[in-house]
């Protein structure tokens, strides 16, 4: 087993003293060689340092984090060899973007055969995403570190940091098409619901609570209330995180806010029993088929966690026409979250409404900060803002537009917003 750089340094130091003794013709200087020689001899007499047999498991709690939530990581290590490990240095590899809150990802310990040890640390992620923990690096040395054995144990685990989700409260949707399952969207058909729909003659077997006594008194025969059925609909959330989200027209991180809003909307819509799908238009296109339930929500937020804003590889129009139109039934609801910066965004929304989809467009509020900008930059920004304003007016003729920014509470904006009139 070769000497480590430290061992070589000790050996070289010994020879330096021998050299000095010869140069200065001072024999007593060679006395300085003795400690080094003893240490090297002591180290070489010990059995060679072997790669340890370790079994390692990593546990994370919770396995995924929402926003600023901390994750506790425990790494269990067991010495499976029959020999003592005098010096064992362990280090769990953590991506640089993760923040170590407390505990330690590295430790130096001794281990006896079959002994167990644990590494414990708490991490938080400033940004959403999927991070990989591991591999675990190990290094065993002799007492002076003259001989070593190092390597890595491939134990890899994914940590998902999901986008922050806010409670938005009930979202009132008016879909032209509803599914057969009961939900919260008025279906314009008679069925189980809470909103009055029409009156009809009482029929034997009807619930007595449905009798409208006032109308019965007026007509002289028993009349019963009919209610408007409330059902679920298909909702597709389209997030546009293409180049426009990186525009300097906005004073905040548009992509992050879009992703967070999309996650909040998905959570609320799933909670209301709807079938929700997702389409992300960014550097990497993401598609989640519409579905119900908590598992679907997890699929949706997991997909949103890894959204990276960037130039899209295919035109938005193609992405919409090739996928959305063929997968999502016509007259469903499409929630479009976009900065409306692309040339074709308005056309796409127009196409969708023409095809019968109900479109709700969430768009960020343009910023007004001009600090650090030259006159030409301010002028360019104004032109850009004007162009966008025209697009916004065009879109608002076809779809409902809700503006958002970090300062605007989306819950308030949603409460103010009224769904379109009944057809």
């Amino acid at each position: 087993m070769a000497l480590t750089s430290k061992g070589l340094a000790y050996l070289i130091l010994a020879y330096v003293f021998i050299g000095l003794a010869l140069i200065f013709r001072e024999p007593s200087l060679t006395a300085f060689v003795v400690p080094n020689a003893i240490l090297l001899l002591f180290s070489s007499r010990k059995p060679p340092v072997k790669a340890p047999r370790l079994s390692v498991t990593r546990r994370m709690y919770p396995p995924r984090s929402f926003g600023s939530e901390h994750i506790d990581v425990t790494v269990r290590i067991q010495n499976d060899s029959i020999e003592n490990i005098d010096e064992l240095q362990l280090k769990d590899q953590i991506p640089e973007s993760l923040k170590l809150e407390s505990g330690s990802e590295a430790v130096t310990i001794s281990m006896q055969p079959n002994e167990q040890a644990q590494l414990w640390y708490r991490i938080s992620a400033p940004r959403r995403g999927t991070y990989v923990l591991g591999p675990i690096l190990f290094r065993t040395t002799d007492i002076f570190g003259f001989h070593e054995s190092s390597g890595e144990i491939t134990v890899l685990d994914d940590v998902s940091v999901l986008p922050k989700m806010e409670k938005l409260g009930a979202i009132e949707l008016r879909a032209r098409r509803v599914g057969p399952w009961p939900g919260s969207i008025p279906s314009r058909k008679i069925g189980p619901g809470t909103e009055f729909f029409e009156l009809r003659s009482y029929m034997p077997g009807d619930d007595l609570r449905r009798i409208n006594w006032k109308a019965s008194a007026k007509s002289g025969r028993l009349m019963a209330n009919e209610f408007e059925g409330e059902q679920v609909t298909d909702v597709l959330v389209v997030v546009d995180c293409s180049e426009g989200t990186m525009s300097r027209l906005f004073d905040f991180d548009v992509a992050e806010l879009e992703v967070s809003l999309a996650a909040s909307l998905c959570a609320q819509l799933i909670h209301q029993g709807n079938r929700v799908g997702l389409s992300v238009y960014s550097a990497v296109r993401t598609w989640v088929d519409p579905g119900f339930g908590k598992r679907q929500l997890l699929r949706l937020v997991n997909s949103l966690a890894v959204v990276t804003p960037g130039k899209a590889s295919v035109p938005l129009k193609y992405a919409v026409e090739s996928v959305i139109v063929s997968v999502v039934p016509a007259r469903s609801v499409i929630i479009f979250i976009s900065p409306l910066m692309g040339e074709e965004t308005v056309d796409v929304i127009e196409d969708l409404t023409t095809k019968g989809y109900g479109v709700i467009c969430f768009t960020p509020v343009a910023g007004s900060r001009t600090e650090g900008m030259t006159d030409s930059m301010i002028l360019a920004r104004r032109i850009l803002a004007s162009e966008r304003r025209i697009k916004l007016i065009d879109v608002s003729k076809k779809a409902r537009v809700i503006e958002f920014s970090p300062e605007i509470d989306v819950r308030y904006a949603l409460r103010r917003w009224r769904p379109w009139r009944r057809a």
Partner: protein
Amino acid sequence: MEALEKSIENINWHWNIIRSAHLALIVFTFLGLAATFPTNLIVIAAFGSGWGILFGAWALLKGDWLWSRAAILVGGVMLSVAVLIQIASKTILQALPGLLLAYVLILFSAEALALTRQHHPTYSKDKKGSQAYSVMLQKSVEHMTRRTIRLASVLGGCYVITLAVLFLGDVFVTALPALSDISLYIVAVSVSLALLLILRED
């Protein structure tokens, strides 16, 4: 939870005790080095020792690689100067036990600083943690204590053996003046040991 925090606090206290012991060692090393300087150069010795202690203390506090190296470098330079002064004044034989002690102490300080640096990341300023973290800290403290004691005994042994070699050399010289150049033997033994070692490596 309170018991856990107390346990972590207790372990941190032990860690600070060990670091204080290491600091005492560094102070002792540099004072020992300063003592090997002649009295007319004591100001330079004090200046060097001051920087050495400062760098060492900072390295212990921060667990920093750079400051550890700086402290050891200062120690090395001071030892070299002290040896050269003794060679120039032909008093190296008398000063040899002191210089050897300083040399062994520098080696010990280097090891102590490396040990502190190795363990430093394990100790968080945060008092909060889990039971697993407390156990981990306990193991770390145990390892550090055991290692410091082992280093002290091995290096102490080295110093004693070196003194014994020197003493035996004196005895041989007294008995057989022809063997006055005992260093030849030391050189021969050292070189052969090193060669043996290298051969063993291959």
